């Protein structure tokens, strides 16, 4: 593929629509008062025409900019490097990426891509600097996307390659591991809701309604009090995120399938936007098993793969490899993916002596809340906050666990949501241990293990454990070679 290729022309439309949407949001946020004023005073036909004219003008300029940029941008592979060459006078740039530094190449198909029968090729680089985002988002027709993907992944290590070195096939052609029915997707959506978020929303909703319709908070002079529009907006702002959080998984994770193709895990899902992750296991740094609070009560788990440089731009999370399943199903899936990630035991819990140092930050914030609330004559709010924080401290203490196995560490943290990371020692970059006067007195330390991952998963906190556990963790991290682990 020495001759350069352009992205599919539909990328011009996508980029233009994105810019238009950005403009709409910008106008709505900054000129909301003006819009309300126009709504109240009525439309002026001449000024409306001018506004429409300006808007059309901006859209045409943006579309032309995107067109010329598209026309002058070529993508090609030369000397084992992927080159994105944009010779457009306003935005000249040439990006060169070594093929060996490419971590993953994945497909995504949204509504626009479905209309034009194209695919968005998402290329992630093995880099800490760009771990938070997808490095390249290129739109091509299906055949071009497949061909480019084949070229880009030909330099992956032998264990990354499919055994017959055949064309990368879709999830339907891989060895299926697990499929999730619509009922399971709904169950996942319902049990993944953040209880903290729901509680916060309920409290904020109560506060909003009380302040709108009563004088409990002394808002009788407020201009917004009792105004139905402001009440609806306030309620939507409070309840909206919870509704979105509850509904989005149903759409996002429909048709969730996981399969294996050689040394790759192939995960596909999506109702409106089809996503397909193709994750080489040799470049997987760790596996994260999560239990949101409600799922924890039902003994259900879901998992994420921590892959070098790869992250989901929209969710700011690593690619999910299974929705909520029970322990037997999770073990089955992990066993199929890589038996090394199967865990029989999350390990020892924090010792009893850990409860006191763990409680102190919560007590400190709780006390501040009580003092501040008392000054404002709402001491009872302070007491509720203190009680909630103490509940958090107890839950946090009960959640922490650590298991140092022969070749990997299993670190469990969280407050209400339990998060367990299974990381081979060769993938751990830095280990920290930390102790204060109180923890020194009890002979315990807390700490963290950092790995190459996006910001959310980089630093993995370890609760309070006896000091010798950290010494063992230090020794094990030194014992294992990162390159040997990578090629395992």
């Amino acid at each position: 593929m020495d001759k350069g290729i352009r992205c599919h022309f539909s990328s011009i439309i996508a980029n233009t629509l994105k810019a238009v949407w950005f403009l709409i949001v910008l106008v709505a946020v900054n000129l909301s008062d003006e819009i309300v004023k126009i709504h109240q005073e009525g439309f002026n036909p001449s000024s409306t025409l001018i506004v429409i004219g300006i808007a059309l003008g901006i859209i045409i300029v943006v579309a032309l900019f995107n067109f010329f940029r598209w026309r002058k941008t070529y993508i090609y592979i030369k000397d084992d490097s992927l080159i994105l060459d944009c010779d457009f006078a306003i935005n000249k740039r040439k990006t060169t990426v070594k093929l060996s530094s490419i971590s993953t190449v994945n497909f995504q198909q949204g509504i626009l891509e479905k209309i034009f029968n194209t695919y968005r090729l998402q290329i992630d680089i093995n880099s800490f600097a760009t771990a938070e985002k997808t490095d390249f988002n290129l739109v091509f027709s299906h055949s071009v996307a497949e061909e480019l993907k084949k070229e880009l992944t030909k330099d992956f290590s032998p264990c990354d390659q499919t055994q017959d070195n055949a064309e990368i096939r879709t999830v339907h052609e891989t060895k299926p591991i697990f499929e999730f029915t619509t009922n399971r997707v709904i169950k996942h959506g319902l049990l993944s809701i953040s209880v903290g978020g729901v509680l916060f929303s309920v409290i904020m909703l109560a506060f909003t309604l009380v302040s709108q319709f009563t004088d409990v908070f002394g808002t009788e002079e407020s201009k917004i009090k009792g105004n139905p529009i402001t009440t609806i907006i306030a309620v939507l702002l409070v309840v909206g995120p919870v509704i979105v959080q509850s509904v989005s998984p149903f759409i996002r994770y429909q048709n969730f399938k996981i399969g294996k193709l050689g040394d790759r895990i192939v995960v596909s899902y999506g109702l409106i936007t089809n996503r397909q992750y193709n994750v080489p296991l040799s470049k997987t740094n760790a596996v994260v098993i999560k239990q949101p609070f409600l799922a924890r009560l039902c003994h259900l788990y879901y998992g994420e793969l921590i892959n070098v440089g790869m992250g989901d731009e929209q969710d700011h999370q690593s690619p999910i490899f299974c929705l909520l399943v029970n322990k037997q199903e999770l073990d089955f899936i992990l066993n199929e993916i890589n038996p090394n990630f199967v865990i029989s035991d999350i390990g020892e819990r924090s010792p009893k002596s850990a409860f006191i140092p763990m409680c102190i930050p919560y007590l400190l914030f709780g006390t501040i809340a009580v003092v501040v609330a008392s000054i404002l004559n709402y001491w009872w709010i302070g007491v509720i906050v203190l009680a909630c924080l103490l509940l958090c401290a107890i839950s946090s203490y009960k959640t922490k666990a650590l298991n140092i196995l022969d070749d990997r560490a299993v670190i469990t943290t969280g407050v209400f949501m339990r998060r367990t990371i299974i990381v081979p020692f060769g993938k751990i970059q830095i280990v920290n241990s930390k102790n204060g006067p109180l923890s020194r007195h009890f002979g315990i330390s807390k700490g963290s293990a950092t790995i190459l991952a996006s910001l959310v998963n980089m630093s993995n906190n370890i609760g309070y454990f006896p000091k010798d556990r950290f010494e063992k963790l230090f020794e094990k991290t030194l014992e294992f070679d990162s390159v040997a682990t990578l090629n395992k």
Partner: protein
Amino acid sequence: MEYKSLNKKAIGCMRLNSIIWSVILAVSGVTTVGIISSNKVKIPTAVYITLGILAVVMVVYDIVVPIIRYKRYRYCIDDEMFVVVEGLWFITKSIAPIERIHQIEVSRGPIDRMFGLGKVLITTAGGVVTIKFLENELAEEIADKLKNRINNIVKDQGVNNNG
């Protein structure tokens, strides 16, 4: 594993850093009080007493804390790993294998330069560990040693992979 302590010049560097922050805090506090009192708001005597106590605490902090931090600060570099131990109330021990190092950088800020000190920033794929308050020659020496060690590791790994 033999830990090394810092040169005593580090105490002066830590103290000057600490004094600068204290001055910034004091100026901010005095300015805030000045602005409030210029708006004809009567400030209670308790506020002045609290500010006075804070000022004394800051002076004591600037005198005593650098000495404690200096005594606690230790580092160790051998063929396999590097370790940094530091802290005041909370003592942190950071450890990383030499083999995981991606980048080494020697950096000298204006205050470091006044004392002839510098720091070595050791970057791994998972973050940075810094050995601070090192004499210039020592910082360069450590950086060179680490670079050589990494080069040897990379060569060995290349031989093993090809072999």
